[in-house]
């Protein structure tokens, strides 16, 4: 687990920003987010099997003002997944961290993202599928309380991730077997690649070419 001096980082961040702009930066728009990198690693594995957008929600703990720790607990809401869309309909509650993925290397939020997911989430982040596939564990963009922050930093930390709950997932208009989905997500986040692979074969249809090219 990484040890970090939050206050020091925060002060330095403010100072650097102020140097650049010569203005006093409002504190509210400079979040520091601690994120378990294991989340991104699990999503990278997930992209061996799926070709749609995906969304996860995680609880947040406010450690100090504007310094947030994304808890290593993941909630997969009920959602419908398509190549370029995701509709989530259940929630973990207020003040959560929502991460969704973008197909290819589209690293900016769309207008729909801004109006819906970003407006409804306390912290909304995106990562591109390309980054995940290339194992570049870097968040591409963030919205904080619905706004683009003037400045933000993401600090990654290592931690195993607990799966809080897995909702009903509709993948390309097909409802996935809920029990198998739950097991799949749990083994995915537990890093059990053999089970993940076996369950993926059951869950995703044989037309998914990604499965045939799998070499696990």
């Amino acid at each position, binding site marked *: 687990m990484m040890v970090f001096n939050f206050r020091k980082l925060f002060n330095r961040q403010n100072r650097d920003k102020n140097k650049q702009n010569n203005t006093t930066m409002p504190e509210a728009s400079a979040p520091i987010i601690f994120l378990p990198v294991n989340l991104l690693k699990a999503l990278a594995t997930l992209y061996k099997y799926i070709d749609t957008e995906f969304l996860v929600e995680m609880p947040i703990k406010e450690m100090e003002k504007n310094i947030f720790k994304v808890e290593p607990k993941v909630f997969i809401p009920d959602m419908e997944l398509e190549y370029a869309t995701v509709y989530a309909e259940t929630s973990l*509650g207020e003040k959560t961290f929502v991460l969704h993925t973008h197909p290819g290397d589209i690293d900016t939020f769309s207008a729909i993202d801004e109006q819906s997911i970003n407006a409804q989430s306390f912290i909304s982040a995106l990562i591109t599928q390309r980054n995940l596939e290339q194992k570049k564990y870097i968040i591409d963009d963030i919205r904080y309380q619905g706004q683009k922050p003037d400045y933000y930093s993401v600090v990654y930390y290592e931690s195993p991730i607990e799966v809080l709950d897995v909702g009903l997932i509709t993948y390309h208009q097909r409802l996935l077997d809920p029990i198998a989905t739950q097991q799949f997500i749990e083994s995915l986040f537990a890093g059990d690649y053999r089970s993940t692979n076996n369950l993926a074969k059951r869950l995703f249809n044989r037309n998914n070419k990604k499965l045939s090219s799998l070499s696990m």
Partner: protein
Amino acid sequence: MVINLIKSGTKKVLTSLSELKGEINSNDNYKVTVFDLTQGSLVSANILSGKEVEQFLIQYESNSNVLVKISVYRPKMAAAHMHLQIGKEQIEVTEEQAVKIANFLKIMDVNIKNGIIPEEYREAVMHIISETPSSDEDSDNVDSVVEKIANAVAEKIITILSPLFATKQKKTQEADNVGSDTTNETINEVLTVLNEIQHQKKSQEQPQKQTSNKNKSQSTVKKVVEKKQKKTNKKDKKTTTNAPKKTQPQKPKKEVLTMNTAAIEVFDTIYDKLPNQAGLASFLARVVVYYNPDAELKVIRKRFKNILERYRADYVVAGEKIITYLSNKGYNTPPIHEAINYYTERRSK
């Protein structure tokens, strides 16, 4: 009954309904999903108000094999990127355009890898974008959408596949004698029409490249189709007066299409996914759906499967039966026999 309650960023596991009291906010809505643990199956998924949750769960209270998941429901939170990626280029589109393109790609059975549309569909996609108004005008007109998709398909065929037609035509002339006169006449006719379209398209594009006059190109396609229909009508009259009457496939209610207008490239993609004999019904059904976007693939496939099983010794008869079926249903009739030949030829390679 075991209840998994997701609330305020945590999961609470409750073992009885009484524990739920005080946990549910009557002003909130909840999604309540019930699982049967013995069957490992989903029993129900309902969106209930806070007041209704407890009442609803009473029926499961004494059932120890039930798992209930309760989480806060919210109106759908959407994330959708309205950028299309074709090859390496990103194009911003409106939602309406995206929907139409998605429909088009679905009809074409395009393999979207990593959300990237293959480069060869660029022209067709760009055509849909240019044909789809960014405002709300005629947004609900399904016919116009289908028409536009059809036009886009036509354009794609004209630009990409026209070199293939000649080869296909030669092959047909050499190999196939069954109804070859009429087929080749039609092929020639369609080729002329396609060349005409291509020629007109080029001559239109050169002087007016910057002013995108979409209506003109649309009307040319329409005119040519009309012209083609008139010609075929005339020919039909001639053949009926001169030739002795034979039992021919029932005249389709809609336009009869030839292989020339089929996107061979698309069929190749479809074929690759159905490489065995059993896939013929599926292949033919997809060909039909390609020409009839409103047709239901499953229904057609099932029907074709039955026909092919019954007449498997004779594909000519089976083809005729399929054509009759399509005509009766009022579908556009693609060249079924040619599609069967195409499929079997490719299989024998």
